[in-house]
């Protein structure tokens, strides 16, 4: 599904990712943890092609194809999805308009027929219910004035509508109340199958009680310094990161 080999990336002249390698197979859930500023969001940004994030060397294969040469929107249409740590507000563009444009683009790419406006609105309303967002949020500007938790739920709604094959959740659990956390976890679990893969970036073991990962990685200083099973998350929760940095150093 995703094959990252010796990825080096730079932001604003600073090297952030250093020789990062990671392999994700269909159906797997990988959790990535690590200290603030270690490069977790940078990884998601580089994978999705965010402007300003420069890959200096390495390669990434997504479904066997070279990912890094693709346009941002191509990657998305191919099934890559990033739930943003900080979702973007777009006043004046309604959520509904935005979601329809996204879903239209993805469906077209997959060779599926356009959904009629009526069918789409129905689908959008059902999906918003699944993430406990009132349908009124569909008429508002994209993320405009949404609370932190509402923004995160809106991201999950987009994920559900787009049905991506690889979902990266960047701290989707941060700022969520207990109920919302379960909504998000429930959404992810409902979408888990033997083809779809997830990268869950989080600081908290708590989320991983709900979404049980197959692998846990620690990202520090721009590289993966330790990988293990779900028990690694518990160990990190207990011990923090410093022992790993000692181990690396």
């Amino acid at each position: 599904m995703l094959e990252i080999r010796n990825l080096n990336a730079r932001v604003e002249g600073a090297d952030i990712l250093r020789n990062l390698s990671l392999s994700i197979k269909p159906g797997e859930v990988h959790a990535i943890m690590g200290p603030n500023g270690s490069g977790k969001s940078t990884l998601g940004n580089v994978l999705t092609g965010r402007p300003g994030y420069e890959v200096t060397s390495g390669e990434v294969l997504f479904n066997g194809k070279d990912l890094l040469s693709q346009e941002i929107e191509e990657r998305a249409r191919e099934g890559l999805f990033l739930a943003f740590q900080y979702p973007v507000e777009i006043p004046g563009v309604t959520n509904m308009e935005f979601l329809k444009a996204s879903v239209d683009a993805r469906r077209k790419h997959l060779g599926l027929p356009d959904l009629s406006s009526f069918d789409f609105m129905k689908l959008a309303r059902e999906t918003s219910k699944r993430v406990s967002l009132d349908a009124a949020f569909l008429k508002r500007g994209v993320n405009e004035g949404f609370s932190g938790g509402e923004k995160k739920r809106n991201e999950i709604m987009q994920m559900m509508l787009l049905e991506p094959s690889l979902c990266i959740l960047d701290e989707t659990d941060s700022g969520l109340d207990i109920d919302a956390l379960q909504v998000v976890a429930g959404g992810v679990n409902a979408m888990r199958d033997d083809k779809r893969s997830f990268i869950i970036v989080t600081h908290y073991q708590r989320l991983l009680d709900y979404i049980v990962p197959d692998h846990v990685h620690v990202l520090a200083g721009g590289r993966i310094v330790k990988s293990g099973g779900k028990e690694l998350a518990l160990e990190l929760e207990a011990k923090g990161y410093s022992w790993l940095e000692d181990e690396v150093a």
Partner: protein
Amino acid sequence: MTDFQTTDFQQRALTLAGQQQSPAWLAALRFEGSEQWLNADWPGRRTELWKYTPLQALQKSTSAGWSSALPQGAGSAALLTIDAIRLVFVNGVFDAKASTANHDSVVRFSNANDAQRSLIEKHLGRIVDTKRHLFASLSNAWVQDGVLVHVPRNVVLEKPVYVVHVSTPEAEPVIANQRLLIVLEDNSQAELIEHFASDARTQNSFVNALTEVSIAANSSLQHYRINLEQEAQIHIGGVHIDLQRDSRYSGFTIAEGSALKRIDYQINHRGNGAYASLNGVYLPRNNQLVDYHTNVEHWAPHCTTSEIFRGIIGDSARAVFNGRILIHPDAQKTLAELSNRNLLTSDKAEVDTKPELEIYADDVKCAHGATVSQLDQTAMYYLQSRGVSKTQARTMLSFGFINELLQDLPQPAVRDYLQHHLTVLFGMDTGTGLS
């Protein structure tokens, strides 16, 4: 400096103005206007108020030059769907068939009764400052007819007044004079929609449109001014408003560009506690020009002004925005805010923006700012990261930038009309009906 010769255009326009039939009681105003028009210096590049907006388009060198319009049927302009007191003019000529029946509060000058006539005499040409507004003097010289909206004390006008000016090409280029006078007495309320439209054919008229508004104590006016004509249309418009104690003016204006389009707003806070908001949108493309000049003067204390203008300038188009707020010494406790944001969507597009704040009182809160920018890159990335193409993302963000000012318009008929117009203009009708 300028040469003091009267230009051919001034001469020609005045001749036409003189040929207009009008009630005798308007003669004094017309005479005064004629004098001023003829003696005015023709604006040149050094004329501050016209610095970025050349008037060459008026000095047409066609053998025929300008003439005045003959009555004819309305063209096929797309109008609002609205239950309103409607008056339709075609190239300045009243079209009774397309208009609703007479209404007590809305009359043409030519049908005014004695009371209405004295109101007109009292206010017409008195709210506008003709020394500052050259084309107002032409309007005065020309005034053959016009519309009076008079809302008596304690009355809430039951329907919006919808005044439509349709332009349609004539055999020879024509000048059309449009005149509107709104008088709200104490504690009254009204809604006015001015709509300048044309059919899709290449236009050859010059519309000189002047609106004067007097809002008495505790009264409020909701005002829309829509300028969506074919791009050969020449339009010079002025809206001049006097606000008395605790009155409210809420204005919205939108203009596509044309060979020459200049719109002036003058708002005078004359009584304590008056409130004015004015939001505007301009969208010149191709080789078009739009020039908005707004001048808000605070003469009295405790008044509030909120002004937001946004423009998208494409292709080789040009926009001019000059927003001045002048706070006179007596206007303590003024609150005034002016923001102007511009989006340039091409390398050749141009905007000259100049917010001006002049403050002569010491206890005031004022803010103003102007920006010229490209689309928000983070928002572009966000949209693209959901599979939306770059082109579509640009369109959506441009639409959103303008829609922020449309989505809260209190009159749904105007809002829906403009949102639809913009989705078509921007080529982004996705059919959710929720643009």
